[in-house]
């Protein structure tokens, strides 16, 4: 709290420029953004050196693989020189500088398969974001609704059923749940065609904004989405229930009741709005969790999102692609956390105050 006082004073005494600069630096949003950038920079650096310190130099590995496949050293070396944007014989620090410089220009290097890493990522990422985002929306919607109902009828049938089903489904790892879904839903009961539903869209359907394509995309996403929703909605319901219960006990709700306001008005205007607040931070953590673990589910269900690219890159020892995808996932997590913090602070000024006072 006390940190804001000198700012005001310095502005008043005429040190306008430094005062404004300091105020910008002390601004909550600016500080959060800087912090996120710092985190991304550290992760990038650690990953760069980690992958370089791995046993075996990727260029040599590539040349060796090509020669084993029957190529001459010269031709393999020439292809390698074209594929790798860095030269392993230059000092590490220079490679690092080049890498960062390229990164700032949005260049993540070249993949071993001949395309750029950016192209590889942009072919897989939209599908992952689509399926995870779509699932998140459904899970949150269902969870919020159930949570509020459970809070109002505490100890009722719904409360118990949702708690039990939610925790059982949550306890089973999502990729195992995917297997169970395929075995029982697909093979045993024949609810869907296991081979047909795989992939992100049916071959022959053009990715464009048409009804056929959109419905096809939803059809193919339905398995991973079902898995994500069923394994996470219980958590949402429980968080919302706890939050609603806390809000129901607040004085202003009691006052609203005493004033004789209708239950419906209290439920939406007084309880609902305030109970949703703590959920927003959850959206970021849950979202990044689902995004981070989507790799398992996507690979099991053969949904060709970012995980398929990552998996292939790991198997091919395609360092540039692995590095690019890891960086991108980090970025998604950092960005969603940042967004949640900013939304939270906009909704609840107390967060800003305490963060400024405590210094982080």
């Amino acid at each position: 709290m006390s940190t804001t006082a000198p700012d005001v004073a310095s502005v008043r005494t005429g040190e306008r420029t430094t005062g404004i600069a300091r105020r910008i630096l002390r601004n909550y949003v600016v500080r959060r953004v800087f912090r996120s950038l710092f985190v991304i920079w550290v992760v990038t650096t650690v990953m760069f050196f980690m992958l370089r310190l791995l046993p075996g130099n990727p260029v040599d590995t590539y040349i060796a693989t090509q020669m084993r496949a029957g190529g001459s050293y010269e031709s393999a070396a020439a292809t390698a020189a074209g594929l790798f944007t860095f030269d392993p014989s230059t000092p590490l620090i220079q490679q690092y500088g080049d890498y960062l410089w390229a990164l700032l220009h949005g260049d993540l290097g070249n993949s071993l398969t001949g395309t750029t890493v950016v192209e590889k990522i942009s072919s897989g990422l939209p599908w992952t974001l689509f399926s995870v985002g779509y699932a998140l929306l459904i899970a949150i919607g269902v969870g919020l609704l159930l949570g509020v109902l459970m809070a109002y009828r505490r100890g009722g049938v719904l409360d118990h059923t949702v708690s039990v089903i939610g925790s059982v489904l949550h306890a089973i790892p999502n990729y195992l749940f995917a297997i169970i879904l395929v075995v029982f839903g697909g093979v045993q009961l024949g609810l869907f065609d296991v081979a047909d539903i795989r992939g992100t869209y049916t071959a022959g359907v053009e990715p464009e904004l048409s009804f056929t394509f959109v419905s096809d995309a939803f059809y193919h996403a339905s398995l991973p989405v079902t898995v994500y929703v069923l394994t996470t909605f219980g958590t949402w319901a429980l968080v919302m229930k706890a939050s609603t219960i806390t809000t129901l006990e607040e004085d202003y709700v009691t006052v609203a009741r005493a004033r004789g306001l209708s239950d419906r008005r209290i439920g939406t205007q007084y309880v609902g709005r305030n109970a949703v607040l703590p959920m927003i931070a959850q959206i970021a953590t849950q979202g990044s969790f689902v995004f981070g673990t989507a790799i398992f589910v996507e690979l099991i269900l053969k949904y060709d999102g970012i995980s398929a690219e990552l998996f292939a890159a790991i198997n091919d020892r395609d360092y540039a692609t692995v590095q690019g995808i890891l960086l991108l996932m980090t970025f998604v997590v950092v960005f969603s956390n940042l967004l949640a913090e900013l939304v939270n602070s906009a909704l609840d000024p107390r967060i800003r105050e305490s963060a400024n006072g405590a210094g982080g």
Partner: protein
Amino acid sequence: MTAIAPGVAEPALAAPAPRTDGVWRTMVRSKSGLAGLVLVVLITGMSYLAPLFVDDHNPVDAQNRWQGPSGEHWLGTDHSGKDVLKQVVLGGQTIIYVGFLAAVITLGVAVVLGSLAAYYRGRLDSALLQLTDIVMTVPAVVLLAVVGAFFGLTTPTTLALLLGLITWPVLMRSIRAQVLSLKEREFVEAARLQDLGNMRIIFVEIVPNMAGYILINFIIAVTNAMYALVGLYVLGLAPLAGANWGIMIHQAWTYGAIYLPEGRAFILAPVCAIALFQLGLVMLTRSLEEIFNPRLSKG
């Protein structure tokens, strides 16, 4: 629901550490807690005691591939004619061992760093918080897959070590929050006045007061570690030597067991084993939460 058993009724003295007999009684009294405990003990017991009774000789039998359940093979045979039941019974050890070891490491790092950060505050605290920010950012499972595949992890112990070193930050933060509130209590003040020394105050006075909290988080850490580990095995990103539940699922999945009615048992048996074990752990944490945090069950 009565959250605290009569056993704990008498007021606890200076350091209000929960009495273990009371915890035990309450847990056994709550149905889901008991069921969870039974599941966990049964499956762990089966995995660790079975090698004493079951002959681990499980030969490849090309004549009897993909056999359905029969008197000779209760759960049928797999793609190479090996007995499935034997594999399930013997396949839990590695998974449970890695889960527990990883949880011990996670918890150890989290408790030590979390208490130190909260107790000393200042630069140490902000540096450690910054570190958690960074480690938490990289999706643990993905990092594990990359590091696991590239470094060629060969032993379960290295896997556990890696898991432990990646997953501590979330727990460290909550331990830190706990210590922050505990260190304002009178008994810590008293210990300070007695000049007991910072290390002693932290690890003898403060940490035991979080015993319940730590126990709950330990179990959660076990489930998380098992989740990541089995996932790596199922995808074939961890070494596929030997036999455990994860490797079984991987083989069943790649050899297309789901399409064969006779192979159904091969894939479902390990899936069920893991799911039941995880379920047991979750039920256990739920009832422990009720014991250590009675306000929850009232809500």
